[in-house]
C-alpha cells in the first residue's frame, strides 16, 4: 500500500452532499415566473447521450435557464487508481470515454512514461499514432451519427456506424477488443502490430474520403440542417477560452489550438496536417470542423503507414513499475478535447493520486451559456454538438 499522507482518508464529504441537495431537490422552492415551467430532461431521455440530466427553465419553449445534474455514471475511477498498480489502472481509463478508448489509454501511458522518464520506442510511437487517429475518426463518426439523429436525420447514423465498424475491426485484429481496447502498455505497445495493419488502414483510408463526401451530401447543404445548426449555440472565442473549453468546440470558435501541434506527443511532429478552425463558433461550424478533422486524421494515417520504423515495441520498463516520487501533468488531444492526466507518485507501485481532466466535463460547462434564449429543440442540438460522453463526465 505504501505510505500515505495524514488526512488522506478523512476527506470530508459534506461538500458533495450540499451539492447534491442544491442540484436534486429544491425545484419546488424555485421562484418561477407566471408562465415558466421546469422541464426535467433526463437522466432517461433519448438524446442526452447517456445519463445526463438537464433541468430546463422554460418560458413557453424558450430556455431561460438550465442546470446540468451529473454523476449518474460516477464510478470513482480516480479513487480506484489509488488502489491499483500503474499497469492495473490502465484498463480503467478505457472505460471513461468508451467511444475513444485508445486515446484515453494513450494519454495515461504517456503520462506514466513521463513520470518514469522513459520513452516509447519509435515503432511504438508511430503505431500509437495510427491507432489513435483511427480512433479519432471512429469517435467523430459516432458523434456525427448521433448528432444527426438528435436533429432528426435518421439515416446518417447507419452510414457512420458502417465505417466505424471497419475501424473497430482493425482494433479487433490488433488487440482482440473493439471498444475498450487497452491497446497500449506503459513504455510501448501491448502487442506487436499484426501483419496487415498497414494494408487494412490503407484500404480504409482510401475509401473513406468518398464516404465523408457522402455524409456531406446528406447534410452540409441541406436547408433544414443549416437552419437547425447555423447560429445555434454560439460560443465566442473569448468565452470558450475563459471556460477552458477545448477540442473541436474551441477550434470552431476560431482558436487554433491543438495539442498535437502545440505540444507534440507520440509521433505527431513527423506528419503534416492542418488544424481546421471555424469562425462563428456555432453548431454548424463545429460540424464542419469535425468533418474536416476526420479528413486530416485520414491524412495522418496515410502518412504514418508509409514508413513504420522497425525495432522493439517496448521501452526499458521493468515488470514492476516504481516511478520516483514526484508529479506530472500530461495532456493529449483526445477526439473531444484536451485529455489531461495529473499523476502524483509517492515512490510506490501505486499512484498516490490520479486526477483526470476530462474534456467532456469541461466542455459541458459551456452548455448553459450556449442554450440560453434558444428553444428546447436546440438544447438537444447543442448537447449533441458538444460531443459529451457521460462515462468521461462522471468518471
Amino acid at each position, binding site marked *: 500500500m505504501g505510505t500515505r499522507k495524514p488526512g488522506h482518508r478523512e476527506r470530508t464529504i459534506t461538500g458533495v452532499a450540499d451539492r447534491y441537495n442544491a442540484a436534486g431537490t429544491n425545484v419546488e422552492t*424555485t421562484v418561477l415566473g407566471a408562465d415558466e415551467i*421546469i422541464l426535467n430532461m433526463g437522466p432517461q431521455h433519448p438524446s442526452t447521450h447517456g445519463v445526463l440530466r438537464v433541468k430546463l427553465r422554460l418560458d413557453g419553449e424558450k430556455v431561460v*435557464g438550465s442546470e446540468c445534474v451529473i454523476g449518474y455514471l460516477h464510478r470513482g475511477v480516480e479513487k480506484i487508481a489509488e488502489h491499483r498498480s500503474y499497469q492495473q489502472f490502465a484498463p480503467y481509463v478505457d472505460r471513461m470515454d468508451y467511444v475513444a478508448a485508445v486515446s484515453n489509454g494513450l494519454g495515461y501511458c504517456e503520462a506514466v512514461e513521463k513520470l518514469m522518464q522513459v520513452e516509447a520506442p519509435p515503432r511504438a510511437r508511430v503505431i500509437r499514432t495510427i491507432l489513435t487517429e483511427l480512433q479519432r475518426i471512429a469517435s467523430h463518426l459516432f458523434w456525427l451519427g448521433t448528432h*444527426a439523429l438528435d436533429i*432528426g*436525420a435518421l*439515416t446518417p447514423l447507419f452510414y457512420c456506424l458502417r465505417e466505424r465498424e471497419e475501424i473497430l475491426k482493425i482494433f479487433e485484429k490488433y488487440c482482440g477488443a473493439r471498444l475498450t481496447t487497452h491497446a497500449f502498455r506503459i513504455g510501448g505497445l501491448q502487442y506487436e502490430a499484426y501483419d496487415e495493419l498497414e494494408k487494412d488502414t490503407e484500404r480504409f483510408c482510401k475509401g473513406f474520403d468518398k464516404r465523408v463526401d457522402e455524409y456531406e451530401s446528406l447534410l452540409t447543404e*441541406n436547408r433544414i440542417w443549416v*437552419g437547425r445548426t447555423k447560429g445555434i449555440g454560439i460560443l465566442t472565442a473569448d468565452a470558450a477560452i475563459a471556460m477552458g473549453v477545448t477540442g473541436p468546440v474551441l477550434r470552431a470558435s476560431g482558436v487554433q489550438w491543438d495539442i498535437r501541434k502545440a505540444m507534440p506527443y507520440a509521433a505527431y511532429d513527423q506528419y503534416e496536417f492542418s488544424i481546421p478552425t471555424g469562425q462563428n463558433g456555432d453548431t454548424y461550424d463545429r460540424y464542419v470542423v469535425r468533418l474536416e478533422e476526420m479528413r486530416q486524421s485520414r491524412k495522418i494515417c496515410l502518412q504514418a503507414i508509409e514508413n513504420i520504423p522497425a525495432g522493439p515495441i517496448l521501452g526499458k520498463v521493468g515488470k514492476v513499475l516504481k516511478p520516483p516520487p514526484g508529479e506530472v501533468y500530461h495532456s493529449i488531444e483526445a477526439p473531444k478535447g484536451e485529455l489531461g492526466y495529473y499523476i502524483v507518485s509517492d515512490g510506490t507501485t501505486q499512484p498516490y493520486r490520479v486526477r483526470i481532466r476530462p474534456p467532456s466535463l469541461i466542455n459541458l460547462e459551456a452548455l448553459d451559456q450556449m442554450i440560453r*434564449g434558444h428553444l428546447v429543440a436546440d438544447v438537444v442540438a447543442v448537447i449533441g454538438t458538444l460531443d459529451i460522453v457521460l462515462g468521461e463526465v462522471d468518471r
Partner: protein
Amino acid sequence: MNAIMPYVFPVLFALVIVALLPLVAGYIVLVERKVMADMQVRLGPMRVGPHGLLQPIADAVKLLLKEDIIPESADKLLFWGAPLISVTAAMLALAALPIGPFFQIADLNIGLLYILGISSLGIFGIVLGGWASNSHYSLMGALRSAAQLVSYETSAGMAIVGALLLAGTLSTRGIVEAQSEAGWWFIFVAPVGFFIYLVASIAETNRAPFDMPEAESELVAGYMTEYSGFRWALYFLAEYTNMVVVASIAATLFLGGWMRPFANTRAFNFLDYLPPLLMLGVAGYCFRRAPKQPVAVQKMFMAAVGLLCIVLALILIMPLAVPRDSFLASSKAGIHGAFWFLFKVGVYIYVFMWLRFTFPRYRFDQLMRLGWQFLVPLSIVNVMGIGVSLALHRQLHWPNWVSFPLGVALTLIAGAFLLATGEKHEHPRVGDEEEEETPVHA
C-alpha cells in the same frame, strides 16, 4: 327489399374497411421499416415470418397483451377516451373517399368538406390526450400539434380550393370524373397546388420532417409519452390511417383517383396488363424464394403469399380476358380502378417515408415560419393563378395550353419571390434580447 338495398353495400364496405384497416396500418409500418432499412444499409425485420412478413401480427399481439398503465395523476376519463377520438375521426374520413368508381361508402355532395371537417376533429384526441397525461412532455407535444395542425390546415385547404376550382364540385367522385373528362390529372394543371398539399399533408399527419409533436429526440414521444399498450396502438393506428386518408385525398384530387395513366388514350391500353403482370412478378419472386426459407412453416407461408398474388393477378386479368360485352368486362373499371387508386396511395405514402429518412427535423419556429410566411401566401397565389387561367380559358377562350402554363408560371414567380424575401427575415436565434441571469434555482 328495395328500400334497404342502397344501404347494404355501403355498410358492407364500411365493415370491410374497419376490419382491414388495422391490418393495413400494421403492414404499412412493416413496409416503412423495410424501406427505412433499405435506405440505411441494413435488413430490417427478418425474424417473424419470412422477411418479417408476420411482424405486424406479432407487434399487435404484444401491444394487446401489454399491461395497461394509466398514470396516477392523469385525468382518467380523458386519458381513456382521447385515443378513441383520434381513431374514430381518422376512420370516418375514409367514408367519402372513392376507391374505384364503385367502391365508395358514401358519395357525399360535400365530400371534401366532410373529409376536411372530420379529419380536423382528430386533433382533439391529441390535445386531450396530451393534457390528460399530466406530463410536461405530453403537454408540449399536444400544444405543438394543435398549433401545427391549425397552421397547415390553412394551406392544405387553400391547395384543395385550387383543385376545386378546376373540378367545379365538392364530391370526390365528381372530382375524379372531372379529371377524366378534362383528359389530364390536376397535378399537371396545378403542380404548385400539389406541392403545397404534399408539404401540408406531411405536416398534418405529424410525419418527419415535421414531426414536432412526437419529436423523439426532444419530447421523448410527445403526446404519446405516457401511453402504452393498446391505447398507444390506437394512436398509432390513427396516425397511419391519417396517412392513408391524406394520400387518398391527394390521389383523388391531383392524381386522377382510380384512373389509369393515359386513361383516354387508346394507344396506352397495354397499361391495363401492367397490374396483373406486376402481381405475377411478385408471385414469381415469392415462389423462387420459398424453398430458400429456413423453416417449413416459412416455406409454406411464402408459397401462400405467392398463391395470393396469383389469385389477385387472375382477378385483375379476368375483365381483360373475357369478351368485351360480358358482365365481367364491365367490372374492369371497378377492379382496375381499385388497383390504380391503391397504387397511387402507395406511391404517395412511399414519398412520405422517403422524406422521413432523408431530412433532418425542422425546429418548431421554423415550421411555423415556413407554414405562415411561405406556404399560406403561396397557396393563396396558387388559387389566384388557377383562377386567372380559368378566366382566360373560359371567358376569353384562350387555349388550354396557353392559359394553364401561364397560371403556373405566375404562381412560380410569386413563390420564388416569397422564398427570396423569406430568407431575409430568418432570425436563427429566437430570443436574442439579453436575458438577465436566471438560474433554475433562484
